[in-house]
């Protein structure tokens, strides 16, 4: 391996016409590529001395074959100089800061002295800019009057010549500078003045920014492709070069024939246009050159720029082997550390194994199976065998295959590419990879079907769902990579998020509903019911029954949950379903069973819900990790998901349209509340219109009215929610989900059963639309609740047409907000990662850049790994106290 070298300095310069001619192997004058017989025209754009792209041929210049020959530059002699678009800013600056006559910098000796005094560092970026020179002054050296130079996009410069006429009148005449004029001026600038401007004249004379000779890139840079019908299709660059040569030749002919000035100028402009678009086809103020099909050409600058350009697309972006991608789907029977892989993928992907004396028999049997493992239950086969001399043999199955012969040949020291099998470790990833938990390692379970299967509890770190999401899978190929994947990247090592120092993996949706239904209040189960709940968990012994009635033993629901807890857990807290009653009954008498009390791994009281098991909450999981480590935590999650799914299936869980139905009495109450609120609003509007409304401090009457109306209607909506929830209890699935924190809120329920409420845009009632009104259905100036987006219906009862329209307006705002947010945060993320990607924590606890520069003297100022912290704090005092005292602190 070559030793790494440090870059001392990088010098940026310009290609001089001389160096362009020196490196050129061919002067290109023929504006075409291949003749009718398919041979390249000599001195054409595909001249064989420019390099080879056809296999088998040898390069005329260096004699090497295709692939070895790097290609060689040619050149085009331009009839007249043209401006290089990339340097228009520099040209403008130079024209403005130097004398039009003698080319000297427009500063006298004292001024120059001042600037050079600042420069003690030869590489400092302190250079003279346009602002340092006063406009339209007189040259301190030759005394010539200077004029204003205007730059007109994309490539023309105009000098505004001011002359004072006879009677003191000032005449302004615009004089267009040709590229030749500009080149002449730039040539006159002395080397010493250029150094003051931050230009090193030995590598970059300013007149080199005006092209007199154009380099023609080698054909290897712009290979032509042969289409299926045998036709050649040239690269965009070649097309553009053809244009340039054609115009250039015509220009020369006209020049030689002594064509009138007008025609010469037109051709010059055309040549400038072609050279400009050849360099950059997205210049402002210049129509892009197009392909015959109307597609803009991809010229030099477009090859480099942007997401799919050379830098971001080809150099930073890499494609990898040993990866696969397919749709994901859930499988709660898998452990969170496993991933189900389709047999087809497991057959295609492989792990290299070195053949040794110890494993040679296993290897032989794998080779005999070959590349087609017929079913899941079969042992894995192999796809390739590599000999020590580097030859690779592809295994072919079937009667004509080579599996058996290769199996006989194989000996120690060879390598085979073995197919994936159960318990192989792989990396699993879902884009966008926004944090480190977006790539975690799983163990494989080969399965039937065509999708990757994963436990739904690992969805939160990937932010995955199963509405068609696809995920990527990578197979580590070395022992080191596998060790890292297992010790650092494994799912169980990433349960705690470095974002907030708590578990990011946990139950979701049905897990929370299920465990809530199981543990809420006290329920008693017979032996068979108890076993039904727990049969898929890792329970080993049935506990003592909680009570015996009529000689029948019963176990409580709290006992069922306690079965999956380690014995040493002691916790005391309020669950999500806590209603914050005043005064709190504390302890075990809570009417809502919201006070969780766990002593020695036994759930004494309380309901297990989102706060206990939810993803990003998971108080119990957090405690288990602190007490018993990651492995036990993983087992707990596996048990929890299985228990909760059993629990929710115990009674079933569903929701239908009739679950939003309320009683007659409730509908009447809701109607009364809304009628009263609307009447109240109407009355306030009346007061306002008569001008009697007392404005609130710092607000106009109108603003006051708007606020009062919003408040009144908001209150009415909340009251309908209260009425609805009074009617709906835990027999209603939506209530269970809202109270347990599984999904949705009481507000969503209120909107389904009671009233949707006020629709808002930017926090205000809807006012946009027609003149003085939102829709033609209302009178002008109507301030009533219905005219400004109050929806009094529920989703169940259905919306009126105007309500529906307002609801769509409010809904659209939400969509636009999310779209804007994701694009902005994506860009922010990109910038952050570019700035921080190479920083690392050194062994002395400092954060350093790759150059060893210190960024932070102690990581996070306290040296604490947030993923190992207790919600940001170095020590979990409450947890330790609870564990020791076994009572609430």
């Amino acid at each position, binding site marked *: 391996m070559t030793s790494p070298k440090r870059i001392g300095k990088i010098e940026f310069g310009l290609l001089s016409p001389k160096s362009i001619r020196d490196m050129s192997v061919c002067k290109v004058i023929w504006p075409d590529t291949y003749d009718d017989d398919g041979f390249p025209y000599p001195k054409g754009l595909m001249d064989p001395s420019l390099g080879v792209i056809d296999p088998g041929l040898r390069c005329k210049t260096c004699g090497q074959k295709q692939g070895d020959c790097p290609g060689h530059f040619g050149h085009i002699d331009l009839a007249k100089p043209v401006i290089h678009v990339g340097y228009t800013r520099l040209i403008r600056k130079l024209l403005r800061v130097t004398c039009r006559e003698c080319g000297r910098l427009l500063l006298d000796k004292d001024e120059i002295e001042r600037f050079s005094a600042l420069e003690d560092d030869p590489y400092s*970026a302190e250079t003279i800019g346009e602002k340092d020179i006063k406009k339209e002054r007189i040259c301190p050296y030759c005394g010539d009057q200077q004029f204003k130079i205007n730059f007109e996009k994309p490539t023309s410069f105009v000098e505004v010549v001011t002359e004072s006429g006879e009677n003191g009148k000032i005449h302004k005449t615009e004089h267009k500078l040709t590229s030749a004029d500009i080149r002449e001026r730039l040539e006159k600038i002395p080397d010493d003045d250029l150094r003051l401007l931050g230009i090193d004249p030995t590598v970059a004379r300013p007149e080199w920014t005006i092209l007199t000779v154009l380099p023609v890139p080698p054909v290897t840079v712009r290979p032509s492709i042969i289409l299926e019908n045998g036709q050649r299709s040239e690269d965009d660059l070649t097309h553009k070069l053809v244009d340039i040569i054609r115009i250039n030749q015509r220009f020369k002919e006209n020049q030689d024939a002594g064509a009138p000035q007008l025609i010469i100028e037109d051709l010059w402009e055309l040549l400038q246009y072609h050279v400009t678009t050849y360099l950059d086809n997205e210049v402002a103020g210049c129509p892009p050159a197009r392909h015959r099909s109307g597609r803009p050409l991809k010229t030099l600058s477009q090859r480099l720029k942007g997401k799919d350009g050379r830098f971001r697309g080809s150099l930073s972006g890499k494609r990898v082997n040993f990866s696969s991608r397919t749709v994901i789907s859930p499988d709660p029977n898998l452990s969170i550390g496993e991933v189900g892989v389709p047999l087809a993928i497991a057959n295609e992907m492989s792990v290299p194994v070195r053949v040794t004396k110890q494993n040679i028999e296993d290897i032989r049997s794998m080779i005999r199976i070959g590349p087609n493992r017929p079913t899941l239950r079969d042992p894995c086969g192999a796809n390739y065998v590599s000999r020590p001399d580097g030859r690779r043999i592809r295994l072919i199955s079937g009667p004509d295959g080579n599996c058996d012969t290769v199996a006989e040949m194989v000996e120690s020291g060879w390598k085979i590419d073995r197919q994936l099998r159960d318990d192989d470790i792989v990396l699993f990833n879902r884009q966008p990879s926004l944090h480190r938990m977006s790539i975690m390692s799983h163990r494989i379970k080969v399965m039937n079907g065509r999708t990757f299967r994963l436990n739904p509890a690992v969805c939160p770190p990937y932010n995955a769902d199963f509405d068609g999401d696809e995920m990527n899978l990578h197979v580590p190929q070395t022992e080191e990579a596998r060790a890292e994947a297992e010790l650092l990247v494994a799912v169980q090592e990433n349960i705690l998020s470095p974002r907030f120092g708590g578990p990011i993996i946990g139950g979701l949706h049905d897990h929370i509903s299920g465990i809530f239904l199981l543990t809420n209040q006290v329920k008693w189960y017979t032996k068979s019911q108890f076993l039904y709940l727990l049969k898929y968990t890792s329970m080993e012994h049935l506990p003592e029954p909680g009570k015996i009635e009529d000689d029948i033993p019963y176990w409580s629901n709290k006992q069922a949950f306690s079965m999956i807890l380690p014995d040493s857990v002691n916790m005391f807290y309020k669950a999500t379903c806590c209603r914050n009653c005043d005064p709190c009954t504390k302890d075990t008498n809570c009417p809502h069973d919201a006070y969780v009390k766990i002593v020695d791994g036994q759930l004494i009281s309380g309901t297990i819900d989102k706060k206990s098991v939810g993803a990003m909450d998971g108080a119990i999981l957090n405690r288990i990790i602190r007490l018993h480590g990651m492995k036990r935590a993983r087992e707990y999650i596996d048990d929890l998901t299985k228990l909760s799914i059993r629990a929710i299936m115990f009674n079933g869980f569903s929701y239908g349209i009739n679950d939003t139905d309320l009683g007659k009495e409730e509908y009447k109450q809701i109607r009364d509340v809304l009628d009263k609120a609307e009447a109240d609003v109407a009355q306030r509007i009346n007061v306002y219109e008569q001008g009697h409304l007392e404005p609130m401090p710092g607000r106009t009457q109108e603003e006051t009215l708007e606020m009062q109306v919003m408040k009144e209607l908001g209150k009415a909506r909340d009251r309908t929610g209260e009425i609805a929830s009074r009617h709906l209890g835990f027999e209603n699935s939506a209530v269970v989900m809202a109270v347990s924190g599984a999904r949705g809120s009481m507000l969503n329920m209120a909107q389904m059963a009671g009233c949707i409420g006020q629709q808002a845009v930017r926090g205000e009632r809807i006012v946009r639309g027609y003149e003085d009104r939102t829709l033609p259905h209302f009178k002008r100036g109507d301030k009533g609740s219905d005219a400004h987006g109050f929806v009094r219906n529920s989703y169940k009862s259905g919306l009126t047409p105007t309500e529906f329209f307002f609801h769509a307006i409010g809904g659209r705002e939400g969509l636009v907000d999310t779209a804007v947010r994701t694009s902005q945060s994506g860009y922010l993320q990109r910038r952050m990662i570019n700035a921080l990607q190479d920083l690392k924590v050194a062994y002395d606890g400092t954060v350093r850049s790759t*150059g060893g520069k210190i960024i932070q003297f102690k990581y*996070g100022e306290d040296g604490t790994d947030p993923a190992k912290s207790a919600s940001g704090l170095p020590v979990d005092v409450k947890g330790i106290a609870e564990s020791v005292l076994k009572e609430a602190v």
Partner: protein
Amino acid sequence: MTRLNVLFHEMVPDHQIMTPEEVAKLLADYDITEEHLPKMYHDDPAVKACGAKPGMIICITRKSQTAGEATSYRLVVRRPKK
């Protein structure tokens, strides 16, 4: 004209110019040269107020959300033009 001394403002952390001995110890502790330190410009209001010149190293002690109090060290450098 009396000028406000920014160092007395409650939101400006403590800036102290380090003695050559302290600097030598700092550089030895972290096994670095001055170039590896974070920088601050000579015309920074706090630098001007405590009278540090380019090439000096300032010890800044600030309140920290995570650690209570955190110290960092910065090398004073000239601000390049533009």
